[in-house]
């Protein structure tokens, strides 16, 4: 039996085949995935330790991009796989992928949780089936908990979000079904009454296919910038609550620089960032 890694079982199989759509082949285009990864990347600081769980392809790309640009001493704990400072060679869709073990160390998954729950990380990435204006995330159930309309996967590591200094929320959709006034179930706590950005650990940034948001000092979600081509109406129509508006005209989310794009395409040769959203 060979030890060689067989990335796919047979020729017809491709980890992302059913995500593929025409735009994936257009290497010159700047996709939503690139804009989102770059936006999150800029929110990470040199020397920080970031940890991520399931379904974290975009956060992983963001963290790796940060390492390759302004934050060379950023530490990435790629949950599930346990890879520490994976080289992301290449970017893979599953957090548990063997590709994440081209890395400096491999933690057992309990050790990843230990570092997260034990407060040894600065940034946690989260998401959910529902996110509300206080930044609460729901990954458990929609509808009555006893007989839900939608049974989600469960709260996973989300209850421990505040063990990290801040949490970045990242979603691959921006809809009224996802951004609701109040989540049906709190898996990751947002800002409680009377608290907001600046008051210790909590959600600090929200990055979606349409926009970047943060939270006001009162703890309500606030629009920061719109991605290129997205209108304010697009965001309002697809958000189930009223976002706080920034003063003046809403800026456009800075696009990735050519250097950033080049780096992302280098560690993402399959172009997954171009098709993930």
């Amino acid at each position: 039996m060979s030890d060689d890694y067989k990335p796919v079982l047979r020729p017809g199989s491709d980890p992302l085949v059913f995500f593929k759509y025409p735009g994936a082949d257009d290497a010159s285009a700047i996709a939503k995935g690139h804009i989102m990864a770059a936006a999150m990347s800029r929110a990470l600081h040199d020397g920080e330790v970031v940890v991520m769980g399931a379904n974290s392809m975009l956060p992983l790309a963001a963290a790796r991009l940060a390492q390759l640009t302004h934050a060379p001493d950023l530490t990435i704990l790629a949950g599930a796989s346990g890879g520490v400072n994976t080289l992301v060679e290449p970017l893979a869709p599953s957090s548990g992928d063997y590709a994440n073990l081209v890395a400096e160390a491999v933690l057992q998954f309990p050790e990843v949780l230990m570092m997260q729950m034990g407060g040894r990380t600065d940034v946690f990435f989260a998401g959910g089936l529902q996110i509300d204006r206080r930044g609460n995330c729901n990954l458990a159930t929609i509808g009555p908990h006893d007989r839900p309309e939608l049974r989600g996967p469960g709260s996973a590591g989300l209850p421990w979000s505040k063990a990290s200094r801040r949490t970045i929320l990242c979603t691959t959709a921006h809809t009224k079904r996802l951004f609701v006034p109040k989540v049906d179930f709190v898996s990751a706590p947002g800002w409680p009454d009377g608290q907001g950005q600046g008051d210790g650990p909590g959600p600090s940034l929200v990055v979606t296919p349409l926009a970047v948001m943060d939270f006001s000092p009162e703890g309500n979600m606030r629009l920061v910038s719109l991605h290129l081509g997205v209108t304010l109406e697009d965001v309002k129509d697809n958000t189930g609550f009223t976002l706080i508006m920034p003063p003046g005209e809403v800026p456009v989310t800075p696009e990735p620089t050519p250097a950033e794009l080049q780096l992302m395409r280098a560690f993402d040769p399959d172009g997954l960032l171009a098709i993930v959203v």
Partner: protein
Amino acid sequence: MDVEEAVSILIPDHAESLWVGGMHMHNVPMALVRGCIRQSKRFETLYAAPSASLAADLLIGAGLVERVVVGYLGFEHLGLAPAFRRAVESGAGNLEVVEADSGSLTLALQAGAWGQPFAPLPRGVEETSLVEPPSPFYRWVTDPFTDDIFLAARAIRPSVALIHCQQADEFGNGVFKGSPFTDRLLALASDVVIMQVEGVVSNNQILKYPQQTGVPSFRVAAVVPVTFGCHPTSSHRYYNYDDVHLRLYLQAASTVEGFENYLAQYVLGPEDQEEYMRRVQNQDWGAIPEGGV
């Protein structure tokens, strides 16, 4: 030992609890899981953590689970767990769901391994819906050193653990060629550990690199070699997950009939792994859906 024998001898027909190793669509000992379903092994409690996927969904869909304690049960970027969804959303089958989280479940497993009665939890769950209305999984405990109150989870010692190592010697000294995930701790914590492997290596090979032994043999009741035994999940460094087959499952299992057909075709039908793989490879490609989940 082969799958049928290991499952038949080592797992009681009505077992107290089961924890399946691997994580998401990686390193899940599916051949053993299919063996359990073929032999209609029932489990009072299934721990779906830190991140369960196909194994848990199949067992639940097959009606072999009475209570599931949920940390995470889904298919990551591929979608939600269809049989679990249906069981909960329809209420059919009386599946009891205990809502928990992956961190507490892992700490509880570790507490079980040490013989601790329970695991006090760091701050975190207090602010979530997990304790309101109270889940039976969490209780308040008073820290005897500070008199502060903390949440706690009862220690877990699974009565049965199914794990996958890429290699092991005949005695059960197992090697993870990729990520160990939670499976070293799982093997140290559980009463009966069945280890599915891709290949058997010599004891001499193990003795050469003892630091690379992920699971020591004294915790392993049986070593079961099964080539491609994790299919359709991955076995790190041996093969990736089969997203085409997983997608087929997710679509099929979105209805009761589809799930039953899948079960007949891929779990109950094939008497062994060879026949299973033949069916996988003869899969009707025309039936594969184009869209996502």
